[in-house]
């Protein structure tokens, strides 16, 4: 039962985080209009993607972010074209955070608060800096080659989006580290961190 139940639980958690991504992106964002009928926005959707990766591991966390944000994109006329890009990027964020937090630092095996704090911070910074760098670049190529936007404009867009992505990343890192470290003890106690220390 353990294995099966744990899968169901992990799936349910993934679904929940995907929903959180969606809700926070859709209802808690400030849109910034941009040249070209495009827009970027200040939002904290990525925070839940990272949170997912910290809690559930890279794959599931990335998946949660990818699903949640892609649905959110698809529901938004301004973002709809970026949906495939979003899916790919969020999955990557998740994988990177998961890699740092779980494979390098193994934070789930630790009970040392400071250690966990430090590494959750490092992992989120890693994941979101990836986003800060990759989002504009991938966005640029995506816009230019796949959507065929004029080069000049794609460049402008990339610059802008780099700026907001950076702001988002900073806010998200703070938020996610705060939330993760606050939520962790509770989840740990109720056995919700799926791979918990063996005892």
């Amino acid at each position, binding site marked *: *039962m*353990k294995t*099966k*139940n744990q899968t169901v639980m992990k799936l349910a958690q993934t679904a929940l985080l995907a929903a959180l991504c969606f809700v926070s992106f859709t209802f808690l964002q400030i849109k910034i209009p941009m040249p070209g009928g495009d827009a970027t926005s200040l939002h904290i959707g990525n925070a839940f993607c990272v949170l997912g990766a910290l809690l559930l591991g890279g794959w599931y966390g990335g998946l949660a972010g990818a699903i949640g944000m892609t649905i959110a994109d698809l529901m938004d006329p301004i973002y709809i074209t970026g949906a495939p890009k979003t899916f790919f990027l969020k999955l990557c964020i998740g994988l990177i955070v998961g890699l740092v937090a779980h494979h390098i630092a193994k934070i789930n095996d630790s009970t040392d608060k400071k250690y966990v704090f430090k590494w959750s911070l490092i992992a989120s910074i890693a994941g979101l800096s990836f986003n800060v760098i990759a989002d504009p670049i991938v966005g640029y190529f995506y816009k230019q080659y796949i959507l065929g936007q004029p080069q000049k404009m794609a460049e402008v867009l990339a610059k802008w989006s780099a700026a907001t992505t950076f702001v988002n990343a900073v806010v998200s890192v703070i938020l996610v580290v705060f939330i993760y470290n606050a939520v962790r003890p509770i989840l*740990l*106690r109720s*056995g919700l961190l799926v791979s*918990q220390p063996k*005892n």
Partner: protein
Amino acid sequence: MSVCIEFQDVSYAYPLTKKAAVRHLNCKLEKGKCYGVIGPNASGKTTFCNLMRGLCPKFYGGILKGNVLVEGKNLEEWEDGELSVRIGYVFQDPFAQVSGIKETVFEEIGMGLENTGVEQEEMIRRILEIAKVVKVDTLLQKNPLALSGGQCQRVAFASVLALDSDIIVIDEPTSQLDPDGTMDVFEIIGALKRQGKTVIIAEHKVDLLAEYCDEIIAMAEGTIIAQGTVREVFQLQILREKKVRIPQVVTLALLLEEKKKALSSIPVSEREAVAMLKERGDI
């Protein structure tokens, strides 16, 4: 009568807790009887139910010592799916028990049946039957997420009853219900007993437990402090020492005894109490 669940010196601690939630549990539950589990908060009632259902330690993790036998077989030897069909479990918190993936109460109740591969006609028949019994037949078309606390509790109860398990474990099924709703639930439990099912029910409303259960298991601080028939258990001094709630009719009888107006024996239900008082006939 045959034993269907047996605890052999069971101790269990949840993960990351130092203190064991329950210690040295020893008891035998017989087939076809109704058991009431009572005790103060945090005395381990829910843990006791979880152990029986195999959720401790398989789901929660933690350390289990001793053996829990269901129908003579150690819990670990049971297949997961099989156990969930064999033992129906209604959880403590009614609000959290809606699966959330079905859009009507009708389908919510049917979900367990879908998972066990029941044919459609049979499924519909059973859902309607259960809905009538639990009095949710007027809610069938409602969305499970838009129910009031009491209604939620009934639907959760119904969806577990639909599986028609032999053993039914119910953890505080009436916490959100009005007095009439509470009576309804106990009526249903009475009916289940008549169908020959084994019912284990953890509750704070001891008055009704006394009326409907065959045996009472009293817990305090993680141990079983008493097990026996209703009349035996509720007379025990230790219950009052450990601050376990006892039925009002019992309190009444004990108070009368103090006043030297003792009844012929200790009543366990209102009906009995009234009968005894009338029989004495001195007002």
